[in-house]
């Protein structure tokens, strides 16, 4: 059996396991991959026909079924974990109808999936748009997109549902047992979280697209108490769009003793002090810095003011493309919805635009932005980059970031050890810590999870009280060393919040090891 076929058959089996509600039944009864034979084709056409009859210039209907599952073991007690959802086993299914009428959007959604409700909700979306027209000062303009009829799914080797709960608990309990034997460890939580998303999008422009996505995020955190000081340490695992193989491949158990030892050492580690130092970022740390000060400011809806009331605008201006320097020559950034494993990797976005990869920064210069159908025209682009996404059926789709990566260095780039050996006075930072950034993504203060002092090319000892202050463009301008593709890793976050009402996105951010010269460190504690 070819891999693609194997994956497809696995997907079908997985879905049957998950199907405990009526929407799941409808999905299970529809022939997989034959989008036009799906039960949702007929249901979609009801909404599209109703919207057309009511005079809409555009309409789409998006059914989704989201299943979040998690299990955690905290101090040998089995409990639920936060991850992609609020904890426990959550199933949520329903549909949202989006229309343009009188030049403005209207949106309504419901968890009740039947013909009458679809007609009612479509009418409500139209009424909402019509009512909104008194407050429009410009009309929605959509970039054109071809009509697609397609099925797409994430390749999954081991469906998380096929692994028994006993096995999952035993795996997590073993981490607890090792950690709680370490003197000084007062708390441990190990967890795994799974997200399954099925969606069916139909648009008035002729697209019918069905997609299935699995995401998996394992990890553990320990708390150490020594000499009256408490520190936590988290083992960073890259969450991925994939199955249970993310858990078994993460070497969680193998790292428990090391992580515990580091947590304990951190308790009594001396403060780093205040001053200019070189920082070396592991990919597990650079991930969130990339997210905050590269990925967010290159969202075009922010650039043109759509998020001014909440998430903020951007220091990047729309006419900066091709002109503004964002960093040093080593700084190359790529937006990507195609790389296998990326949590934002999909076949199509929620506008029905085929996914792609494109450059944002090349040799330090801004060369592109993240766009969707609604915003592409602001920078004169004829096509969307495919960045529309909604958390679930309940939410309206809007511009969300894709996976955004810092590219690895060319062949011959230094290894992490060589970068350390070449650093005279620096701090090595691993993992996520306190992250705070202004509303235009220019002044950031970031911490990490664990820190080591680098003196004269040697990793000397752990230090504490480390934060650094980053003025975005200066920060990346000081990027003077990166590792090659063999040390490039893709981490990510399950909690990217944006929009009103707030919605959650799950982007991945790949990075090499990076060294930033002469950055202010430790100011928060001064």
């Amino acid at each position, binding site marked *: 059996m070819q891999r693609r076929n194997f994956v497809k058959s696995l997907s079908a089996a997985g879905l049957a396991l998950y199907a405990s509600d*009526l929407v799941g039944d409808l999905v299970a009864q529809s022939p997989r991959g034959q989008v036009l034979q799906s039960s949702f084709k007929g249901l979609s056409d009801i909404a599209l026909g109703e919207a057309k009859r009511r005079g809409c210039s555009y309409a789409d209907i998006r059914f989704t079924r989201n299943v979040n599952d998690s299990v955690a073991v905290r101090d040998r007690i089995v409990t639920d974990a936060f991850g992609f959802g609020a904890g*426990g086993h959550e199933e949520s299914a329903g549909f949202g109808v989006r229309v343009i009428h009188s030049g403005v959007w209207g949106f309504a959604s419901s*968890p009740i999936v039947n013909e009458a409700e679809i007609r009612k909700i479509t009418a409500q979306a139209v009424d909402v748009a019509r009512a909104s027209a008194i407050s429009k000062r410009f009309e929605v303009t959509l970039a054109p997109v071809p009509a697609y009829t397609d099925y797409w799914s994430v390749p999954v080797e081991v469906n998380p549902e096929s692994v028994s709960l006993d096995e999952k608990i035993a795996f997590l309990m073993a981490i607890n047992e090792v950690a709680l034997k370490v003197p000084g460890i007062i708390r441990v939580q190990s967890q795994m979280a799974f997200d399954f998303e099925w969606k069916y999008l139909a648009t008035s422009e002729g697209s019918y697209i069905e997609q299935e996505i699995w995401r998996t995020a394992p990890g553990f955190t320990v708390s150490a*108490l020594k000499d009256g000081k408490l520190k936590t340490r988290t083992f960073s695992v890259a969450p991925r769009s994939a199955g249970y193989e993310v858990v078994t491949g993460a070497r969680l158990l193998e790292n428990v003793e090391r992580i515990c030892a580091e947590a304990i050492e951190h308790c009594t580690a001396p403060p780093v002090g205040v001053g200019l130092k070189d920082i070396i970022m592991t990919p597990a740390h650079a991930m969130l810095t990339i997210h905050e000060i590269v990925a967010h400011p290159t969202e075009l809806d922010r650039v043109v003011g759509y998020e001014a009331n909440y998430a903020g605008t951007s220091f990047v201006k729309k006419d900066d493309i091709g002109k503004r320097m964002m960093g040093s020559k080593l700084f190359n950034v790529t937006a990507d919805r195609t790389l296998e494993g990326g949590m934002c990797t999909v076949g199509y976005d929620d506008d029905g635009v085929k996914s792609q990869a494109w450059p944002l920064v090349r040799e330090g210069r801004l060369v592109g932005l993240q766009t969707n159908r609604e915003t592409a025209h602001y920078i004169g682009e004829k096509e969307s980059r495919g960045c529309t996404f909604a958390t679930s059926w309940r939410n309206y789709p809007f511009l969300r970031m894709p996976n955004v990566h810092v590219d690895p260095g060319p062949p011959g780039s230094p290894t992490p050890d060589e970068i350390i050996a070449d650093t005279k006075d620096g701090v090595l930072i691993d993992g996520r810590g306190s992250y705070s950034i*202004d509303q235009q993504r220019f*002044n950031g203060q970031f*911490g990490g999870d664990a820190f080591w002092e680098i003196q004269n090319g040697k990793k000397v000892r752990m230090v504490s009280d480390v934060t650094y202050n980053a003025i975005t463009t200066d920060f990346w301008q000081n990027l003077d060393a990166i590792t090659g593709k063999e040390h490039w890793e893709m981490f990510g976050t399950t909690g990217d919040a944006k929009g009103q009402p707030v919605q959650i996105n799950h982007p991945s951010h790949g990075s090499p090891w990076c060294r930033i010269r002469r950055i202010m460190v430790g100011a928060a504690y001064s």
Partner: protein
Amino acid sequence: MAYARDEVKAITDKVLNMCKADAVQVGFSGGERSATRFANSSITANLVEHDQEVQITVYYGKRTASATTHQFDDATLRRTIEGVQALAQRKPENPEVMPLVKPPQQYLEVEAALPSAVGFGPAERAQMVKVSTDICEKKGVLGAGYIPKFDWVNATANSEGLFTYFRYADASFILTCRTPDQTGSGWAGTTGAKDIRNIDAAMLTEVAADKALKSAKPRAIEPGNYTVILEPRPAARYLSLMLGSLNARSAEEGRSFMSGKARGETRLGEKIFGDNFTLRSEISNQVLRQSPVGQDGLPARDITWIEKGVVKNLYYDRYWAQRQKKDPTGTMPGMSLVMDGGTASIDEMIRSTRRGLLVSFFWYIRPVDTMTLLNTGMTRDGLFLIENGEIVGPVQNFRWNESPAVSFNNISMLGRPIPMHTGEAYDNPGTALVPPMKLEDFTMTSISPAV
């Protein structure tokens, strides 16, 4: 789509009757969440979300599991229940599982779904946007805002016969005005209004627009320690930073700012804030009109957390209370929160300030050190320098690093509390009564030039 008490009871009864576990708890939530957004003085999104869900938690002795579904047909409920029952039986015992709360329980009567909020629809919201953006146009600024509305029901039922039902309807109006040259920005808003007549979109737009115009082209001044006057929005965000430390378990486990010197000890009874800092939960408050139902259906009661600087109560959840042989605290920190204020107006605070800053908004606050409550964040949407009792002009924003544990010993003036959301976003309950406050020696660490 409001769910009436009888309708919800029928749903929860159906679930309880279908379950075969030793004990069952059902949490229901559902209703309408609507919202209107605008940016660049034009409406950008107007939406109505309908939702309903039951969270079913089943118990076999100390073994438990929970599952959530949004479909209420018999087949879905049956399969969800069968699934969660099987899941619970496969799990090991959880020693922290508590028996269900037994009826009868007495809850305070809170009328929280008033007609003006229930009937606040997309057309009314669009009209509010028009009122606001017309003023923006006249003043020469761009308006970006958000008008969320809830008509929502939360209910709890269990197999002991307990049933609680709470319906609320409220709305907020939140606005950021910006100058076309992008050098000035101003914020104004009101949140959690149970009576929509208390939302004055025109007045709020005047405030935000004037702030934007007055804050344009700010100059940079040196970071350092400043007297700050926090308007209610930044005051509410700052206040929220200490709520987590009121948890008794983390305090007694040595993981919190409220932990005592030895493990197992807390700072209960200690005076650790200034005389003028008093924080209460007032469940019967007629402005807030928030839920009278606490953890697992326990009744929430008025409670004083901090009184004149002394820690009077910590929050004991049901398990930790039993373990420590205490009574559980029905009221969770953050419920119907009221911080006592004073009588000073913001003008009086300004007039009494030799050199300081008037702060309109705090942004992106994150913890730096949980044991000391050290946090970092930035000012935003209007920061003004005060010298010799007068505002002398706009200044560039600052990043700050400060702890409410320090600041709430340094409150020099308080104004009258008003309703203001304590969270970063405005989508969940979280409005409290918070006064504007004048704090001494607030640490501004670096310039944050973003507007």
